[in-house]
C-alpha cells in the first residue's frame, strides 16, 4: 500500500524537475549527433545498429552519461527531503522508513527509465532517416540495458543519500560514486590486486580470474559485457557465459545492497 504510493509520488515529483528534462534532452541530442556523425560516408555496408551501439554509443555515451544522470537524480532523494523538511511531511503519513528508501529507489528508477526511453527515441528516428541497416530489435534491447544500468546507479545513489545526514555528505557521496565506478574503477582495482597479490596467490583462483571478476563487478563494465553479448546474439552463451552470469549477479547486488545499507543507517537516525 505504502511503497507504491511513495514511488508514484516520487516519480511525479522527479519527472517535473527541470534538471531531469535538461539531461534527457542533452543525452538524446548527443546520441543523435553521434548516430549521424559516424554514419558511413558511402555504402551502408558493414555499418549496423549493433556496431553503432557497442562501439560508439555504449562506451562513449551510455556508460558515462547514464550513471551521471542517475547520480544527479538519486543523490538527494532522501537527504534533500531531510534537509528541506519535506521528509517530515512524508513521515507524518503512515510510511515506514523502508517504504521511503525503496519507494524512492523505484520512483526515481522509473523516472530515469522513462527518460532513457525518451532519450533513445529521437536517435532512433535519426537512424531510420539516414540510410543504415537499422535493427529495431537490437536498438530496443540496448535501450533496456541502458535502463537497467540507470536503475542500478539510482539504487547506489539513493542508498548513499539515505545514509547521508546532510545534503553535503550526499553530494560528496554522489561525486564519489561517479568517480569510483565510472572513472577510477580500473585504477583502483588494479591497485587492490597489486596490494593483495600475495594474499591471492595461495588461493585456488588465478589473478586473471579475480581481475575479470572485479571488472564485471562494476555495473558499468557488467552491463557492457551483457549488452555486447546481446548485440552479438550471445546472451548467456558462448565463451563469456560465466562472466555474464557474474555480471548479472553483481548488477543485482548493486541494485539491492546500497539501499539496504543506507536504510540500516537511515532507520537508526534521529531525523
Amino acid at each position, binding site marked *: 500500500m505504502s511503497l507504491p504510493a511513495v514511488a508514484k509520488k516520487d516519480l511525479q*515529483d522527479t519527472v517535473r524537475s527541470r534538471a531531469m528534462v535538461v539531461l534527457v534532452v542533452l543525452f538524446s541530442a548527443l546520441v543523435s549527433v553521434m548516430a549521424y556523425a559516424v554514419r558511413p560516408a558511402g555504402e551502408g555496408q558493414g555499418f549496423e545498429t549493433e556496431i553503432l551501439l557497442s562501439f560508439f554509443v555504449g562506451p562513449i555515451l551510455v556508460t558515462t552519461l547514464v550513471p551521471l544522470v542517475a547520480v544527479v537524480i538519486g543523490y538527494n532523494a532522501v537527504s534533500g527531503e531531510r534537509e528541506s523538511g519535506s521528509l517530515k511531511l512524508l*513521515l507524518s503519513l503512515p510510511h515506514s522508513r523502508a517504504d521511503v528508501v525503496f519507494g524512492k529507489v523505484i520512483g526515481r528508477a522509473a523516472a530515469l527509465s522513462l527518460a532513457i526511453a525518451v532519450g533513445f527515441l529521437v536517435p532512433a528516428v535519426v537512424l531510420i532517416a539516414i540510410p543504415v541497416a537499422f535493427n529495431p530489435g537490437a536498438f530496443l534491447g540496448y535501450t533496456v540495458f541502458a535502463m537497467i544500468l540507470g536503475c542500478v546507479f539510482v539504487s547506489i545513489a539513493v542508498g548513499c543519500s539515505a545514509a547521508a545526514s546532510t545534503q553535503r555528505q550526499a553530494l560528496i557521496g554522489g561525486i564519489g560514486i561517479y568517480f569510483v565506478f565510472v572513472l577510477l574503477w580500473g585504477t583502483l582495482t588494479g591497485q587492490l590486486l597489486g596490494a593483495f597479490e600475495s594474499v591471492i596467490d595461495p588461493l585456488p583462483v588465478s589473478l586473471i580470474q579475480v581481475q575479470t571478476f572485479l571488472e564485471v563487478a562494476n555495473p558499468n563494465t557488467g552491463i557492457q559485457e551483457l549488452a555486447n553479448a546481446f548485440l552479438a546474439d550471445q546472451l548467456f552463451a558462448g565463451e563469456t557465459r560465466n562472466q555474464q552470469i557474474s555480471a548479472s549477479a553483481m548488477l543485482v547486488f548493486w541494485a539491492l545492497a546500497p539501499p539496504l545499507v543506507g536504510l540500516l543507517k537511515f532507520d537508526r537516525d*534521529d531525523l
Partner: protein
Amino acid sequence: MTAIELHGVTKQFADVTAVDDLDLAVEEGEIYGFLGPNGAGKSTTINMVLDLVRPTTGNVTVLGRDATADSVEIRRRTGVLPEGFSVYNRLSGRKHVEFAIESKGIDAEPETLLERVGLSAEAWDRKAGGYSKGMCQRLALAMALAGEPELLILDEPSSGLDPAGAKEMREIVRAEADRGATVFFSSHVLGQVEAVCDRVGILRDGELVAEDSIEGLRDAVGGEETLDIETAGVDEDALESVRALDGVSQVVRVEGSDRIRVNCANDVKTRVIATLEDAGVGVSDFHTEEASLEDLFLAYTEGDSASPRVGDDDEETAGGPADGDDAEEADGTDETDPTATAEEVDR
C-alpha cells in the same frame, strides 16, 4: 485509554538534554495544549511521539502501542501537522492531498479537505512551491485531517497564519474534538491554547513544570481575578448574594463610593454581574484586573525574574522561529516571543 503516554522519557542530544525524565498523559478525547517557550523541548517530544526521534531512555506509547515498534500503525490512525516542514515544490496542492489519501489507504475527496482548511480553489492546482507559509500550513492540515484520524498531533499549528486563519484553525480543532478525536497541539502562543484546550501542560527546559486546566493554572499561580464594578448604588443583601456564589472569595465595598471589588475565579465574572443585576443593582461600568496569561506563562517558564509584559493584541500569529533543529531548540536560550498574547484587561 490514554491517547499519548510518556514514561520517564529522556532525550539526550550530543551536548544537551532536550527532554528530561518527562511523564505525560493525554487522555482520549481531550484537547491538550502543549506549551512552552521556544527551545523548551516541545518539538523533540512530539518527534519522539512520531518516532522521528528515539528517546534515550523511557517509554512512549501512542494509542496503546509502542511509538517506535508500531509507528506506521500509529500514523495510520493519526493526523500530523509537523513543524518546520516543507512541501513538495513541484507538486500541486491537490496532488499533496491525493498522496495523503493514497498513503492512508482511505477514500476521501481531496476537494472537500482543501475546502475545509480554507485553501482557495484557484490554488489547488498550482504548484505548492509558490504557496505562502500560511497556505502550506493549511495544506498540511488538510493532509492531516484526511481519513478522520483518532488522534491529531499539531506542532505549532498557527504559525504563518493570520488572526483569521488562526481562528479557523481553532474552529477546526474544536470540530475535530467534537467528532471524538483527541487533539494534542503545541504552541508558544498562549491565546490559542486558552481558547480551545481542556488541559495544558507547560514545558520548561525539557521538564513539565505545570499541567492543569487554564483556570487551574491561574489559581495555582494565585491568578485570581479582581472584578471592579461601578454601581448606581448597592446594598448589603446584594453583596451577600454575590458572596454566596461559588468561586467568589471576597467581596468588598470601596469606602465612600458605590464601587465594589470582587475577587473571583475567571469563569464566574458574568454570574457576578448577573447576580447584582438580579438583585436590582444597576451596574454602570466594570472591568477586571487579572494576572494575564502572559504573566502566568512567564511565571512558569522564567521564574521570578520575569518582568510582566502586556501585549496589545488578542492573537499572536506570526509564529516563532520555525526551526526544527533539536539541538538548537534544546538550549533554551530563545526568548519568549514578546508579542505573545496577554489577556485583555477589559472584557
